[in-house]
């Protein structure tokens, strides 16, 4: 069996580990445009922050490819696939496959902005190379303008906060981290970030760049030396789309990570699957999902059936020591608790927990995540107790015996 994997992120690594759980021998070829050993992209902000280095950023140890018998083609770009002959055409030649995984991820999306092309120092914040280039452009006096107050934009802001003089963030949304936080929660985080010297221009956008200045829709102007665009990403779907596979915003996959093209799978940020909380088909561009989709794809490619139907939004992020965790969908009734160092919202509906936002004391939040993932009926547990304090106590003896005692009921 010949496996070909396009991509070198967590989905690709998950696929390798998934394949090898079942098939120790089949040939695996990995094609990646980036020339680097697999590394963790979210770590690039920590690299700038000095909390990690290139060595420690490696997502898997140096021997990983060799230990798993992977033939690696780094710095090679996959250009198209031929689903009939089952080959991948790359800029270095054709590679045949029996099973193909597209784990090509996404690329920055930059909306059309007047004068953008003329901005001299402009960067994205997606890759290791992006991060290195950005950091080289910074001096302690540099004023940085970040377009986008989402996860990427703000992690970038945190990452460079010690390397530059000033940071301004512009976002069209009325709050920061609009994709994961509600208004109140966002305010909590925003306050903390402002305390670290950041400026926010929300419900606003750039009308025009001119000289070292951005003029906003609201009429405000921001002077800057370096521009970072972190508005959003676009899934890399063209390989499948061109081969006639179904795509929307991402490559459509089922619970087995199969695309509509025979023997072609997709996983990670380029794939669009079902959100187990909402039931909607969407891209869940999150590392845990990417890995688990990749692993599921790998197993299925190696002939071991098994679905991954537990994809959901789940985020853990921190800025300057303020931690927040979120998961699921913010729908239904709300349990709200706010106290010293704690902001907690639990969303529940139809006898199940739908989602949560917790800022501050995030200990044991995984118990809530599991309840969302497992659709634990709230009527079967002491919900009041668990709202206050995530523990195994509300689950009852029998369930605990399964969880802690290995007892199979």
């Amino acid at each position, binding site marked *: 069996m010949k496996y070909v994997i396009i991509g070198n992120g967590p989905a690709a690594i998950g696929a390798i580990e998934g394949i090898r759980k079942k098939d120790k021998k089949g040939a695996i070829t990995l094609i990646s445009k980036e020339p680097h050993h697999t590394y963790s992209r979210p770590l690039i902000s920590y690299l700038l922050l000095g909390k990690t280095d290139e060595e420690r950023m490696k997502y898997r140890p140096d021997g990983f490819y060799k230990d798993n018998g992977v033939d690696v083609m780094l710095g090679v770009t996959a250009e198209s696939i031929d689903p009939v002959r089952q080959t991948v055409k790359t800029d270095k030649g054709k590679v045949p496959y029996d099973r193909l995984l597209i784990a090509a991820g996404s690329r920055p999306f930059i909306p059309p902005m007047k004068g953008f092309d003329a901005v001299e120092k402009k960067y994205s914040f997606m890759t290791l190379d992006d991060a290195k280039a950005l950091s080289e452009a910074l001096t302690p006096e540099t004023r940085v303008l970040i377009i986008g107050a989402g996860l990427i934009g703000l992690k970038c802001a945190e990452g460079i906060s010690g390397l530059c003089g000033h940071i301004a963030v512009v976002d069209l949304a009325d709050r920061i981290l609009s994709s994961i936080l509600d208004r109140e929660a966002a305010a909590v985080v925003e306050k903390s970030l402002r305390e670290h010297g950041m400026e926010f221009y929300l419900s606003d956008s750039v009308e025009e760049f001119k000289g070292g200045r951005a003029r906003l829709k609201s009429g405000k102007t921001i002077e800057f030396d370096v521009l970072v665009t972190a508005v959003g990403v676009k899934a890399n779907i063209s390989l499948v789309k061109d081969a006639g596979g179904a795509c929307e915003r991402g490559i459509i996959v089922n619970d087995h990570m199969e695309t509509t093209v025979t023997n072609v799978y997709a996983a990670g940020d380029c794939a669009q699957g079902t959100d187990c909380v909402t039931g909607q088909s969407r891209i869940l561009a999150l590392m845990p999902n990417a890995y688990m989709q990749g692993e599921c794809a790998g197993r299925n490619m190696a002939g071991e059936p098994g679905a991954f139907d537990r994809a959901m939004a789940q985020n853990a992020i921190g800025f300057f020591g303020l931690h927040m965790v979120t998961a699921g969908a913010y729908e239904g009734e709300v349990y709200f608790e706010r106290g010293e160092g704690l902001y907690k919202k639990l969303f529940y509906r139809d006898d199940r927990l739908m989602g949560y936002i917790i800022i501050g004391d995030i200990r044991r939040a995984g118990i809530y995540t599991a309840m969302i993932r497992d659709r634990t009926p709230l009527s079967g547990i002491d919900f009041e107790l668990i709202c206050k304090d995530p523990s195994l106590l509300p689950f009852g003896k029998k369930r605990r015996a399964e969880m802690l*005692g290995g007892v199979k009921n």
Partner: protein
Amino acid sequence: MKRVYVNEKWCLGCHLCEYNCAFSNSGGRDMATTLMGVNIRPNIRVEEGEGVCYAVSCRHCEDPLCVKGCIGGALSIEDGVIEIDKSKCIHCYTCIVMCPYGAVMPSEDGAVQKCELCVKTKKGTPACVAGCPNGAIVFEER
């Protein structure tokens, strides 16, 4: 594979496991001097409720969500034991969001800590098990 299992029927809520864990992972020579005045942060924690008590520590899942979720590759499985490489942990706490048992937790320095079955202390039986006075925590194949 041998794992730590907890039978709450026999848990006395004495919290010795917590102290034994904290001591074992401290690398200290003597518990009294090592833990004197220390607010311990054990990898196993006793939960208590109405007439119920039991200890919770990492289950060392076969299919561990924490490892899959770890964005930095800091968590890994070595011979079935889920270990944390603290130097690679960047304190994102994705693992905490992933763990259904609440068994992964931030340590004092911010990196996550979790039960590693005392493999790094090289004492064989995990300290919580060895010190449990009532066999409520066992280390065995199931």
